[in-house]
């Protein structure tokens, strides 16, 4: 056999188009519906839970309560899962949660370099950037640069950056520092200042008036 073509240096990979993926998923789903594994209703219900019910507004409630109730803050830092459960917050991918507190000397940020571990019950499902290779590869290696250049968050070198790589089944989230000038705000208004990014550690809570 003669050929002028040189073999590819790695096995050929054909990336699927959006249409091909959709057809593949639909075929799998059809078989699973027939086999009693799932239903379209169950898909819609699960999707709806994370679209409308479970999201960072739940984590924000936890943070605002920790800012206003010192005893709750103590319980949250001692056992994140139990403290969240007091507020009726918990479930899949949050069975063992730990809150890590920002101070004037430590800034915390969470990641999962091996996959996409994230505390669903308090933050909802992770954004794509959290699951994508760029963040996972770089945040452990050059955290100050990633926070500054990719998220606009400047952490001075006098503050330790502590990156939590969620490599086991513990799920971490950040208890950010309470913004100045919020001493008179009630808990529900404080919760509106708490962003998803501030609980990942790639942002700060909003200032009053910006919410």
């Amino acid at each position: 056999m003669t050929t002028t073509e040189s073999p590819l240096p790695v096995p050929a990979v054909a990336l699927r188009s959006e249409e091909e993926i959709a057809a593949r998923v639909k075929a799998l789903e059809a078989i699973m519906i027939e086999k009693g594994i799932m239903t379209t209703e169950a898909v819609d219900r699960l999707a709806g839970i994370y679209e409308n019910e479970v999201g960072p507004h739940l984590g924000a409630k936890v943070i605002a309560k920790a800012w206003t109730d010192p005893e709750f803050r103590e319980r949250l830092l001692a056992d994140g899962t139990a403290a969240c459960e007091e507020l009726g917050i918990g479930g899949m991918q949050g069975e063992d949660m730990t809150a890590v507190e920002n101070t004037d000397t430590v800034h915390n940020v969470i990641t999962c370099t091996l996959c996409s571990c994230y505390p669903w019950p308090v933050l909802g499902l992770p954004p794509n950037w959290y699951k994508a290779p760029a963040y996972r590869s770089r945040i452990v290696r050059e955290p100050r640069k990633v926070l500054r250049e990719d998220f606009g968050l400047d952490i001075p070198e006098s503050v330790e950056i502590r990156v939590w790589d969620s490599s086991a089944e513990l799920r971490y989230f950040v208890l950010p520092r309470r913004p100045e000038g919020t001493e008179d705000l009630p808990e529900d208004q404080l919760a509106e200042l708490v962003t998803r990014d501030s609980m990942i550690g790639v942002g700060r809570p909003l200032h009053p008036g910006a919410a």
Partner: protein
Amino acid sequence: MNGVHDLGGTDGLGPVQVEDREPVWHSDWEKAAFAMFPANFLKGHFNLDEFRHGIEQMHPAEYLLSPYYEHWIHTVEDHVVAAGVVDAEELEARTQHYLKNPDEPLPDRRDPEQVALFEQVMRAGGSARRESGRDPRFAIGDRVRVADDSPLGHTRRARYVRGKTGVIDLAHGTFIYPDSAANGLGEDPQHVYTVRFDAAQLWGEEAADPNATVTFDVWEPYIEKA
């Protein structure tokens, strides 16, 4: 396994791309892909560690370039075919059919009890914490080194911490051991610790971010006294 999924410290993957006002779902197929995880988990077609191991076996180029939930489809498909639940040829035939007839509806089947079960499972979760009766070999404050060998099969022992020395900050009790559970060897619960590493220990003084640390959770067999 030394896979491409083990991304910590890899260079050259570009800036973080943040999508403004990102929706929870980018398309309907993502919703179905997501639901296939609890649905098949409940049927015993894989455990969580086998699910992750399936993703790790994607071709590296495909892993890096494909949309996130396609990773889930890849591992779900591998496991249901291996379990004999789905026939690979039938799946391919149906895929071609839906590709030509994208608007054809899915089979209609109602199962209100299943919807309630899914809701209950998402709400209750399923902890990987297990009683073991084993005494911990290490304590908070201990200096430990991560063994630097390269196991075959699934492991959570990331390459960037192998051979590195850190200090135990937290002790969590015993959990399912993924190096066993993903490889068909049972749950074999082991103690889990949070180990804190100085950035300079991980990357060297010159490259390290000044005043930075990384905490990494290890199962006891990963570490030895330093």
